[in-house]
């Protein structure tokens, strides 16, 4: 199986690579169109700011390529937000795979960003949660969120319920960092690789 990690300016790629090392699968870190098109699975990771990340993807034409991909794609954190239609983070137009808006958390009582381990409730038919409990703890770091919508496959509650996971066709996404979310996170990645 060929696994490709999308190469762009997002941080935390090392953590994703080491997570795949722990699982024991080889991977390529690339922005090459033909390698990405031919890979069996794509991981689109990310930590960063939406407008900068989109500008970098555009520079390489990845903003047009990624939505056309046909194999299973797993997007995490800012990767998930970039697959949405638009983000309130610096009023950024994103790739639009998921027809939903990314909003900024607003709260006077709770700290923003949302940092730490929070529980998610998965929907019944979420294949990435196979073998896991209906409620699992995973690690979040984010100030922007995707509201609960028809594509939501797991819900987390902070300020209000929001989308912890999304799914549409071959695109799977997680707001949390599966790569550092303990055994639950590892199982989610393994489930994605087994799709």
């Amino acid at each position, binding site marked *: 199986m060929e696994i490709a990690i999308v190469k762009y300016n997002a941080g*935390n790629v090392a953590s994703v690579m080491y997570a795949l090392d*722990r699982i024991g699968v080889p991977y390529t870190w690339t922005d090459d169109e033909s390698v990405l098109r031919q890979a069996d699975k794509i991981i689109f990771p990310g930590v960063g700011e939406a407008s900068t990340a989109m500008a970098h993807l555009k520079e390489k034409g990845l903003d047009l390529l990624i939505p056309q991909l046909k194999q299973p794609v797993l997007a995490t954190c800012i990767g998930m937000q970039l697959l949405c239609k638009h983000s309130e983070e610096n009023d950024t137009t994103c790739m639009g795979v998921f027809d939903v808006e990314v909003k900024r958390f607003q709260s006077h009582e709770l700290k923003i960003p949302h940092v730490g381990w929070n529980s998610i409730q998965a929907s019944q038919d979420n294949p990435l949660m196979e073998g896991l409990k209906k409620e699992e703890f995973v690690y979040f770091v984010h100030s922007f969120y995707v509201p609960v919508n028809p594509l939501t496959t797991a819900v987390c509650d902070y300020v209000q319920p929001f989308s912890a996971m999304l799914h549409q066709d071959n695109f799977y996404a997680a707001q949390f960092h599966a790569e550092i979310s303990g055994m639950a996170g590892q199982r989610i990645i393994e489930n994605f690789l087994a799709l």
Partner: protein
Amino acid sequence: MLTKRIIPCLDIKDGRTVKGTNFVDLRDAGDPVELGALYAQEGADELVFLDITATVDDRKTLVNLVREVARHVNIPFTVGGGISSIQDVSALLNAGADKVSINSSAVRNPDLIDELALQFGSQCIIVAIDTRWVDGTDWVHTHGGRKITDIQTIPWAKEVENRGAGEILLTSMDADGTKAGFANALTSTISSNSSIPIIASGGAGSMEHFYEVFTEGKADAGLAASIFHFKEIGILDLKNYLASKGIPMRI
């Protein structure tokens, strides 16, 4: 519900864990990778590795160590000690650290916080503040708490947040080593005045102390070293105790 975090801290010298450890089930108690992985398995929410040597040669050892930890640990971990430049941070993040912690270098050059936050994102920049009560006020200290500065702790905490720190690791030098409890009043003041998470450190001696720092102290995370290394408190026992008292925990 967002949980409170329990964070063991490992002091590293020449690539080895220092301070005695009391883990009979460890093959090598001085191996930070093995100890870190064991803590993760026992339910630690994050790990902090603090390099207490930090000479040029040791930096290379540290980067190699970070790489090994990242290969074996599946929870977030932070590296601190002697970090003073974008290059230092870049090397540690590329080796697999999730966050870095800066302390004296931020006091010396506060602009470093802004530069690091811009370059790498606030989420991976922790500013550590060592504080001590002197003549009726809390003052920032450097050099492991030995050297007083002319900066007051409470305004400094706000300043590092405004400059882009993602979290604050607050160590009370008055409480540190006493095992008499965290500095709850100061922690609470800073946490209430802050929109970023506060990791409280210094003074943990019992499970009740963690309960107090999460309630009275309003801390988002509690960090300790020796009580975990010497197995005076087991991480899972601590988390079960806190959960039974109504503190949200990942168990």
